[in-house]
């Protein structure tokens, strides 16, 4: 039967044991951080915090010890990530390198590339961004036009990326570029490059978002000279590599908990009442029920990763369910609070709600849109 491999799995006790030390560290490290800042969840950027986490050994937790990683299981990482999200820790600086870029480099790169980048990632000193989307290549990623041309000493990069989260605050981009053929060649002729963002010919322009912040950027490459060692993996294997990268990107608990800080703030508000209304209790119960089941599904996907599988369809399925919950939470909480418009809200709850509600449409866009994911699930059902 379809996807009957998603079995209820318990996090092993050794990995679960990581929870309390992480929680204690975060309580101390984040003291005094206001709720609406924590509510930015994994979008919050703080390089100092990332370095402190790196000192603890909590970046690259699953990566090999010889490369500076923690040598722990994916279940340990699940616990760590769950606690980071519960606290609303500002993890964005190291998030992409930890989750995607460093594992990609270890999987497809040379030993020199692993030595050059992975230990620094694990120390919280080297930050990466993802160079996939372009102005005319969004969901249709295979149509990218940024081109890398061979030169005597390596490659020359020309083109443009967009919606690159934190390009202006990170050190390197793992960029997908065309090395042969043209946009009509589709999946063939693409390659991945590690691009040093300080090189001449690179222009980075942050783009203001609807919350008045600027996390994502336009990045222009104008004759950027790259060394031969910038190529990650085999020339022409870019599509295969990027597909495996997306499995890391989609499978984690960050696709369930983006609205968790808001939810907790609302639950605290209910707790402060004598007795919440029946409809609020039902709403809280519904959210907690869905969250509990989705968490179990996410752990089931983690168990597949642990077994060495590449659960692409399963990840897509859990991400679509997870982002649906993440988007339901601000909408439903706004509705519940609006049932009683004459009771003034605590200011921090109002600000947190506004922030999460406004950014929530992005939850089902970033990391693959809802429509793309449903297409992948349909393929898993044998329909495509």
């Amino acid at each position, binding site marked *: *039967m*379809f*996807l*009957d491999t*998603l*079995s*209820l*799995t*318990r996090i092993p006790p050794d990995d679960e044991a990581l929870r309390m030390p992480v929680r204690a560290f975060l309580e101390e490290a984040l003291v005094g951080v206001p709720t609406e800042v924590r509510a930015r969840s994994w979008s919050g950027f703080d390089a100092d915090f990332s370095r402190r986490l790196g000192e603890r050994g909590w970046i690259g937790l699953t990566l090999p010890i010889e490369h500076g990683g923690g040598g722990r299981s994916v279940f340990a990482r699940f616990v760590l990530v*769950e606690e980071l999200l*519960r606290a609303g820790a500002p993890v964005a600086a190291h998030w992409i390198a930890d989750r995607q870029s460093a594992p990609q480099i270890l999987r497809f790169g040379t030993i020199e590339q692993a030595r050059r980048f992975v230990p620094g990632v694990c120390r919280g000193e080297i930050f990466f961004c993802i160079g996939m989307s372009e102005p005319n290549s969004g969901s249709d990623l295979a149509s990218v036009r940024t081109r890398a041309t061979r030169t005597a000493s390596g490659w020359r990069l020309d083109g443009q990326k967009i919606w690159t989260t934190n390009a202006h605050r990170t050190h390197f981009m793992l960029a997908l570029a065309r090395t042969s053929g043209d946009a009509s060649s589709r999946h063939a002729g693409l390659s991945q490059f590690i691009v040093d963002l300080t090189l001449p010919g690179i222009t980075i322009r942050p783009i203001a978002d609807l919350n008045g912040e600027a996390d994502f950027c336009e990045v222009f490459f104008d004759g950027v000279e790259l060394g031969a060692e910038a190529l990650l993996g085999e020339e022409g294997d870019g599509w295969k590599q990027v597909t495996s990268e997306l499995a890391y990107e989609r499978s984690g608990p960050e696709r369930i*908990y983006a609205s*968790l800080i808001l*939810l*907790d703030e609302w*639950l*605290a508000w*209910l*707790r402060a009442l004598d*007795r*919440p209304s*029946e409809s*609020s*209790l*039902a*709403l*809280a*119960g*519904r*959210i*907690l*029920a*869905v*969250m*509990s*089941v*989705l*968490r*179990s*599904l996410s752990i*089931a996907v983690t168990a597949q990763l642990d077994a060495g599988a590449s659960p692409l369809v399963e990840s897509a*399925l859990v991400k*679509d*369910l997870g982002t649906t919950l993440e988007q339901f939470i601000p909408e439903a909480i706004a509705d519940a609070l609006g049932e009683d418009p004459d009771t003034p809200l605590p200011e921090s709850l109002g600000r947190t709600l506004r922030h999460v509600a406004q950014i929530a449409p992005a939850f089902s866009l970033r990391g693959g849109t809802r*429509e793309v*994911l*449903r*297409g992948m*699930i*349909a393929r*898993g*059902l*044998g*329909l*495509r």
Partner: protein
Amino acid sequence: MQDELAAAFDSWLAAVCPPAVVRAIDAGGSSATLWREIESSGYLDALVPEAQGGAGLKLAAVRPLVQACGTHAVPVPFVETMVARAELARAGHERADGPLALAGLDDATLPAAARATWIAATTSALIAGAAERVLELASTYAQQRVQFGRPIGSFQAVQHRLAVMAEQTCTARMAAQLAFAVPAPRPDRTLAAIAKCVAGEAAAIVAAGGHAVHGAIGITAAYDLQLCTRRLLAWRTEGGSPTYWAREVGTAWWRSGETRALDFALARLADAQG
């Protein structure tokens, strides 16, 4: 071993309870033959302790059996009788023959709250099983039915509807696993409430999706889809609707004294074993 048991049970059910038998009993025909098969199979004593002549299976081990009853739309109270026999044995009563209803047991044997918990847990697993069957029927049909010169499953609108059905089927299946995951002889109240809240919502989405994909043929008595979709809608509210069980989970949160969502979930899920 658990997988083997589930597979054996599933093939046995497919043989003794095919759609033709379900349809005949649903239409008011006699269930005597089917019931004789069930009674003589021994499966009804799955949860009865070995010392009392049963199979002494754990709760988690019977979940696939309950799910299979949903997949095959079993039209007799197999699951309720299996649970009732376990509760009677637990209370030291003699075994009763024939179909049993949990509502027929006295309060000393099965208190009302425990009865409600059993219904929530078992209907969650029945929903998961029936949802699997509806998803299977609909995705097969979408690949066979041709309109506008191509299988309707090649249209994105149909694909996305089926993707949502697959998501909800997986959700219901995980919910059912949670409801049956405790080592105790009875399901846990809050885990069963979580399961029924979520599986009940899934039931409506999967049933509606199954009909949307099938079009008019799915409405007919002759086509198998209705055997499962009518049951999905009935199980959705049997023993309490999704909102009823959502309020139960919310009340459990309120009483727990926990404020933070993850802490509540971790405490509830701590007893659940795969």
